[in-house]
Structures are given as structure tokens and as C-alpha cells.
């Protein structure tokens, strides 16, 4: 087979459950309760005759907030439609969704390029619309043809569908888009984005543009990939699908339009995509406006008010951390990618410490390392931002060396691990007990230096003649004498004393 040149074309459809207490059209709970199937339903979400849906205001507000954060235009007029199909998890036999007049369209989300040296990539968002989720089918896994079980707890949960343009060019880019989307949704507080519980889901449309020798291109048939329930699986499934489509092109030469759009599932265990059975007439959804619901009309003023109330997006925050707090782009990204709790922890620490860079160093190194080792979220970490920020402030004020601060930090962690509760006041106690405070009394230091020079005259002579390596034993002696002295300051003062002598 000759080598094939092609461009990968990917568009993503992200579904995210909105963080409301009750469902989109009824007062049933939205809690994730697989242990209590069918305990969160009512005539509305069961689709019983005569039940009337009424829109949850919070769900609509969260939708608008998300669309604004994605730089979308917000429609001044929007309505809901019935999308009709039969499936056991859809008791009404139609899904209330939005067809031709979604509440938002035409936005974008910026992601880092594959090559970090390249400028950010702006991925266009086609639209975001608000719809209801379906229930959950649980299949008989024995293969003996048993019944499928249906749990309708999830039916009617508010779901935001965010459709991207086919602007993504690699599996890695698709993954980064999803990760950035998740970070954004978490920061603006619209979804908990728990992929295991299905509150963030993703389908991918993938095809190739084959490059020919004469410069022309041919598009291959579009395949929709489903059932990818982690970032890693999204990346792996697309990587596999790209290779499969390239080899399929070489075997069949099929172009877009030659065959109907295919749906393929991802088998994570075998690491392959597989063709899913096509439903007859599956695309004939016969949308029409839902007569049970009324349109939503927003004024320009209401849209602008919502824009003003928009929380800071991760992108803006990354810029602020660099410009105002002096962080590197890398450190700002590391912190923000950890999510809102970690970012909040960092900001509080930086504020108390008074030095963003020092706070970032500690958070991205010591704190992240210890959190990963302990496997706990930052909210349960005993060394709170208040404690850490205060400790780092002691360094900044010259009361502790970085090394002594690390010792204090270790002692605090040990105390917490042994079951004691720790607080800001413990810093002072530990520093006092262990005599860790930096000695700023140069008189004591001068005396210790003089004593050390007297005790080791040969070493002192060596240092004076330029062999600075010989200073080590002298500094060690001085430090033993004056606990808490800053080794750097001791070294400087020793060299100066010897030079002046």
C-alpha cells in the first residue's frame, strides 16, 4: 500500500447534565440514584397522558450562562420541539429538544494547539441547545436473550447539547477540547461533569479528507462514534477510527455520500470501534413545536445582564494569573486544569502569602504531590490554604527560610496524619519549639562566625584564598550554633568577614 496523505476532520457533540435540583419539566429529583431505580419519576417524566411540562427557570439560566461563556449569540426568541422516535428509555416516544430555533448559536472555545509553540486554536461552536435526557436501559449481559431493564430516574434531567463545527484535526485535539470544555463547565458552575455518572458525555463525527497528488481532496464517509465514557477513550476511539477509515478508503474508495452515515460504538476492552445496527428511518424524527410548552423571549437587556453576571472563565483566569500574579503560562495551566477547588486553594494561598510565584511553586509541587499520594481532594487536605498561605508569608517576611518552612510543613502534615487537628497558630508553636525562626540578630551570628573561624583556622584560610568549597564545614558549625539562621545569609556573612579580615 502506498503511503496515504490526509487531514483528519472531527466535530464533537457534548452532552452535559445541568446542575439543578429538580428535572427540566417537573419537580422530580435529579440525584444520581442507580441504587433506587424508578424512584424519581412522576406523571410528567413518565409521559403519562394529561401531564403538562413546565420549564425549570434555573436550567434555562444555566444554559444561557454556558452559551455566553462559549461566546455564543443568545437568541431573543427560542422554542422547544418534539423529536420523535421509539425507544424503551423514552416513555413519551418523543424527546423535548430544540430544532430550528435553539437558544444559542455561533460561538467558540479556544484550546492549546498540539504543538505548544503554536498559537491557540479557536474551535467554532455551531450551537448549544437545551433538551431533556432519556432514561437508562440496562441490558442482559448473559447473552441468553433475557429482558432489558429500564430505569427512568434520569428521564427529563436537563441536558445541554453543545455541537462543535468540524474544526478539530486530531484525536489529541478532540481530547483537549473536551478537557477544556469540562474545565469551563466546572468553573462557571453549571455541571458537575462526572463522566462516570454520565453527566458529561461525548459523541464524535469523524472522517478524512484524502489528499491527491494533483492537490485535490476527497472526503470519506462520516462516522458517528458513541459510547466513549472517558477522555482517554475519546482519544483512543478516534485514533482507531482514523486508521480504520484510511485503510477502508484504500480498500473501497468510498466517498462521502456513497453510503449512509454510519454509527459506530467503542469497545474499550478490545480497543476497536464496531458498527451499530442502523434503525430503519432513524433520521425521520418529524420535529414539530411542542404545543405543551411556550416560547422563551429574552430582551437584549436581559442577555447583557446575564453576560455581566458571567463568572470568570478558565481562559480569563489563566491570563490573570500570568499578568497579575506573575505565574508562568505552564503553572497557571497546571493549577486551573485541577479545577475550581484547587484554583480557589491557590488563590487564597497566594493572597495570604503575598507572592503568587511562591504560592504557585508550593501548590504545583508540594501540595499536588501530597494530594496525589494521599488520593484526597484538596477540600479534605489538612494543610488548608489559610495555613499554607500564612506559612509562606513567613518566608516572604524573612522569618523562615524555605528549608525551615518545609520542615514546618512536614511537621504539620505529621500532626494531621496522627489525628490532631491543625491550625494557623501551630506554625508559631512549631517554629518556637524547633528554634526554626531565621536569626536576624547579626550580633549572635557574628559571634558564631568568629568562633568557627577560631576553631578551624586552616579551613578559614582556604576560604580566604578563594577555595569557597572549604566553607561548608564552617557554615555547618555556625548553623549548629545558631539554629534557624539562613544558610545563604550565613555564607555571605562568613565570606565577607573573611574577606575583610
Amino acid at each position, binding site marked *: 500500500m502506498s503511503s496515504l496523505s490526509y487531514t483528519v476532520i472531527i466535530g464533537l457533540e457534548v452532552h452535559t447534565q445541568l446542575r439543578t435540583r429538580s428535572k427540566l419539566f417537573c419537580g422530580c429529583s435529579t440525584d444520581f440514584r442507580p441504587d433506587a431505580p*424508578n424512584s424519581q419519576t412522576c406523571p410528567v417524566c*413518565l409521559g403519562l397522558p394529561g401531564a403538562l411540562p413546565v420549564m425549570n427557570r434555573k436550567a434555562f439560566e444555566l444554559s444561557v450562562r454556558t452559551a455566553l461563556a462559549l461566546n455564543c449569540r443568545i437568541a431573543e426568541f427560542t*422554542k422547544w420541539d418534539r423529536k420523535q422516535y421509539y425507544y424503551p428509555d423514552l416513555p413519551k416516544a418523543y424527546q423535548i429538544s430544540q430544532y430550528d430555533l435553539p437558544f444559542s448559536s455561533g460561538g467558540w472555545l479556544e484550546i492549546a494547539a498540539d504543538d505548544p509553540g503554536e498559537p491557540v486554536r479557536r474551535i467554532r461552536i455551531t450551537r448549544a441547545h437545551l433538551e431533556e435526557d432519556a432514561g437508562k436501559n440496562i441490558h442482559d449481559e448473559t447473552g441468553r436473550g433475557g429482558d432489558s431493564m*429500564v430505569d427512568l430516574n434520569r428521564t427529563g434531567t436537563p441536558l445541554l447539547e453543545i455541537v462543535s463545527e468540524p474544526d478539530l484535526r486530531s484525536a489529541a485535539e478532540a481530547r483537549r477540547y473536551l478537557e477544556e470544555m469540562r474545565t469551563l463547565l466546572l468553573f462557571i458552575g453549571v455541571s458537575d461533569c462526572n463522566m462516570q455518572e454520565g453527566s458529561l458525555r461525548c459523541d464524535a463525527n469523524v472522517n478524512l479528507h484524502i489528499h491527491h497528488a494533483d492537490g485535490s481532496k476527497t472526503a470519506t464517509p462520516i462516522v458517528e462514534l458513541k459510547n466513549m465514557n472517558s477522555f482517554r477513550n475519546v482519544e483512543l476511539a478516534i485514533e482507531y477510527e482514523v486508521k480504520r477509515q484510511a485503510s477502508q478508503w484504500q480498500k473501497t474508495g468510498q466517498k462521502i455520500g456513497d453510503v449512509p452515515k454510519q454509527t459506530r460504538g467503542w469497545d474499550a476492552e478490545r480497543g476497536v470501534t464496531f458498527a451499530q445496527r442502523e434503525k430503519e428511518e432513524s433520521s425521520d424524527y418529524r420535529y414539530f413545536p411542542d404545543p405543551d410548552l411556550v416560547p422563551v423571549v429574552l430582551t437584549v437587556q436581559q442577555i447583557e445582564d446575564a453576560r455581566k453576571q458571567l463568572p470568570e472563565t478558565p481562559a480569563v483566569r489563566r491570563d490573570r494569573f500570568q499578568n497579575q500574579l506573575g505565574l508562568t503560562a505552564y503553572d497557571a495551566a497546571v493549577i486551573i486544569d485541577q479545577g475550581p477547588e484547587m484554583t480557589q486553594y491557590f488563590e487564597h494561598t497566594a493572597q495570604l502569602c503575598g507572592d503568587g510565584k511562591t504560592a504557585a511553586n508550593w501548590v504545583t509541587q508540594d501540595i499536588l504531590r501530597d494530594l496525589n499520594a494521599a488520593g484526597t481532594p484538596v477540600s479534605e487536605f489538612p494543610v488548608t490554604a489559610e495555613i499554607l498561605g500564612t506559612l509562606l508569608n513567613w518566608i516572604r517576611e524573612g522569618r523562615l527560610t524555605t528549608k525551615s518552612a518545609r520542615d514546618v510543613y512536614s511537621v504539620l502534615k505529621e500532626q494531621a496524619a496522627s489525628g490532631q487537628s491543625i491550625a494557623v497558630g501551630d506554625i508559631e508553636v512549631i517554629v518556637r519549639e524547633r528554634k526554626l525562626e531565621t536569626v536576624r540578630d547579626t550580633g549572635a551570628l557574628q559571634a558564631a562566625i568568629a568562633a568557627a573561624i577560631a576553631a578551624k583556622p586552616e579551613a578559614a584560610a582556604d576560604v580566604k584564598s578563594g577555595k569557597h568549597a572549604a566553607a561548608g564545614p564552617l557554615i555547618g558549625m555556625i548553623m549548629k550554633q545558631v539554629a534557624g539562621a539562613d544558610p545563604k545569609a550565613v555564607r555571605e556573612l562568613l565570606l565577607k568577614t573573611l574577606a575583610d579580615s
Partner: protein
Amino acid sequence: MEISDVRKVASLARLALTEEELLTYGRQLTGILDYVRLLDEVDTQNTEPMPHAIALQNVFRDDQRTNSLDVADALSNAPRTDGQYFLVPQILEERSGGK
């Protein structure tokens, strides 16, 4: 109305119709469509398209929880259940997302 259209509509509605029934319903549907087609005589040149029959908008409820049905009540209309789930003939493929 073409018989092929009637067959398609019936299949979308999961109705198994005999050839005779297809003809009967085809005639009835044609009658309904002809009747509705009378509206074509109205001049709508200067009328804004309406997505809704009643002049009402922005009807919302607060994000408050209300009591759900007991599981037994929720399942009471189902042809088959195991007391926890609705039971349906085996489904061979899974869909994801909201469609």
C-alpha cells in the same frame, strides 16, 4: 395521499396495517389533508410565522423538588416489571447522548 406515504407513516408509528387498512386510512388521511389545505386560501403575505397557537411566553417554574411517585405506582401501568425496573424485550444496541 400515496399508499407508500401511508405505509411509511404507519411504520413510523409502529402500526402493522393490512393492505385493506392502508387504503382505508389513506383515504381518511387524504380527507384530513384536503380539509386543512383550505387554509392555503388565506392570504398570509403580511403575517409573521407563529411557532405557537397561544400568545403566551416565558412560563417558568422555580427549581424546587416535589414528591415523586412511589416505585410501585410508577410501575403500575407497565405490562411487565420486576418490582424495580420496567422490563422490555431485549435491546441489542445502546444509544448514548440525548438522542
